[in-house]
């Protein structure tokens, strides 16, 4: 029951938090900013519209949004929000889930290529390049967690005997993991400094350019998928920062959503105070995140056993 409830809250609340990013950015710019529920309004507006399909596209194009939303949703089913047991869990599910997210991206990419627009091909190439680099970081994080905890599933990471958290035995190493996971979050969700979600020029876009041809409900599905993905990464970081024990459900939930809001605020702050990197500096940024976790993984060999 608790797991259904926490999942339902997570699914319903995910579009709320990007509104926080917009609010933080507006605060830094000295503006009032859109209402907090802006993303719900956007979704409702998009769902009411009809879709326009170009003559040059095939069924692949219509498949893209559905698959990308589905892959983002499946990941949420496996995640123990605020310490509640996830709906599904098996040994090794993290690997499956990260590959599922890759499938979602793959379908977004081929949908973009299907439109035969040169801009979309360019965006797809960049997206794939950067996420390939980010994958190295993610899997090094999994290696690190395996060394710390000996498990390969989200439920075992955060709810088992020996949960991974900052307060744990080798919690200091998780500082590395948190910083690099935040960098991966920025990369994977196309935020500044890797990509600018508010840009208006196709030449400088990465993720936005791939979804230019989608409209109406299709666009809503893609946006929703993006919200879930961002929510998943923030929840991941939240669990690293604070251990959620099963004892008190409600206060856990409150703390969980407060920390998530702080993380989204941090994303908004990064976007307000940083300019995006030049394209050729982005691989360095991602490589730094990889190096950080690799540092941590090396340290587990030496002393933190």
């Amino acid at each position: 029951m608790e797991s259904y409830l926490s999942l339902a809250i997570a699914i319903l609340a995910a579009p709320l938090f990007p509104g926080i990013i917009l609010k933080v950015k507006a605060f830094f710019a000295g503006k009032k900013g859109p209402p907090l529920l802006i993303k719900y309004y956007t979704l409702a507006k998009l769902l009411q519209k009809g879709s326009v399909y170009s003559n040059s596209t095939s069924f692949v194009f219509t498949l893209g949004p559905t698959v990308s939303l589905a892959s983002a949703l499946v990941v949420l089913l496996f995640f123990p929000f605020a310490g509640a047991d996830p709906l599904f869990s098996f040994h090794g599910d993290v690997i499956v889930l990260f590959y599922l997210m890759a499938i979602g991206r793959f379908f977004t990419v081929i949908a973009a290529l299907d439109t035969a627009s040169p801009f979309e091909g360019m965006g797809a190439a960049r997206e794939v390049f950067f996420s390939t680099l980010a994958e190295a970081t993610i899997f090094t994080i999994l290696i690190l967690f395996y060394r710390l905890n000996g498990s390969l599933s989200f439920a075992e990471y955060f709810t088992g005997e020996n949960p991974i958290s900052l307060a744990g035995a080798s919690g200091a190493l998780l500082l590395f993991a948190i910083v690099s996971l935040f960098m991966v979050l920025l990369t994977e969700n196309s935020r500044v400094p890797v990509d600018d979600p508010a840009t208006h020029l196709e030449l400088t876009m990465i993720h936005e350019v791939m979804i230019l041809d989608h409209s109406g409900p299709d666009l809503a599905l893609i946006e929703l998928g993006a919200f879930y993905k961002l929510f998943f990464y923030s929840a991941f970081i939240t669990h690293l920062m604070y251990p959620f024990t099963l004892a008190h459900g409600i206060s856990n939930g409150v703390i969980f959503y407060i920390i998530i809001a702080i993380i989204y605020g941090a994303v908004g702050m990064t976007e307000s105070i940083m300019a995006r990197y030049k394209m050729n500096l982005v691989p360095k940024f991602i490589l730094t995140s990889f190096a950080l976790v690799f540092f941590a993984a090396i340290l587990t060999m030496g002393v933190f056993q």
Partner: protein
Amino acid sequence: MINFTEAILVIILLSVLFSLGSTRLLALVRIMVLQGVAVSLIPLFLKDHGTLGSGPIIFFQVMILIKGVLIPALLYLAVKRVAIKREIEPFIGYHASIMTGLVIILVSVFITNHLRLSLPTGQATLLIAAITTMASGFFLMMARKKAITQVIGYLMLENGIYLIGTALTKHSHTLYIVEFGVLLDLLVGVMIMGIILNNINTAFDDVDTTLLGRLKD
């Protein structure tokens, strides 16, 4: 509860890695502030001296002031005065530098495991961080062209040496002659660097040290 010594050591390692990858000089100076403060905080959190007299406490505060405020301020002035913003063509590129950082930490873990020093428990990481900081500072001095980045490399080297000192001496002494010597050294070094940088800049319109190779009688 979270282990503060290890957390600070991890922050030092983070700063080392970021300094290897940062292109902007001002960012580098900020990273050095973080690293200087973290390094000077380390002795306060070590387990084996729970009770500190007022003398050492004042000393550590002076240390934080010098490493965290005075030296960075001098560096900042130097960066502002010679109006350089970034290292454009380093001898060794940024990707390669980060990779070298990984190799350095691998080697320092190896060295620490094989030195078999009789360190108190929990201080092996201290030695790893110390060797990594030292070697990375050395590497930074070799890999960059601008005089100011080389001085920052030197600062990192000194931070590493200070950490090694903290790891090995266990602070059983009450006189901080050596530490003060190191600090004075650093301070003078940074001041001289500022003056020299200014002179190089007026002579060549740039602070690239490779230009000095062109000097002929």
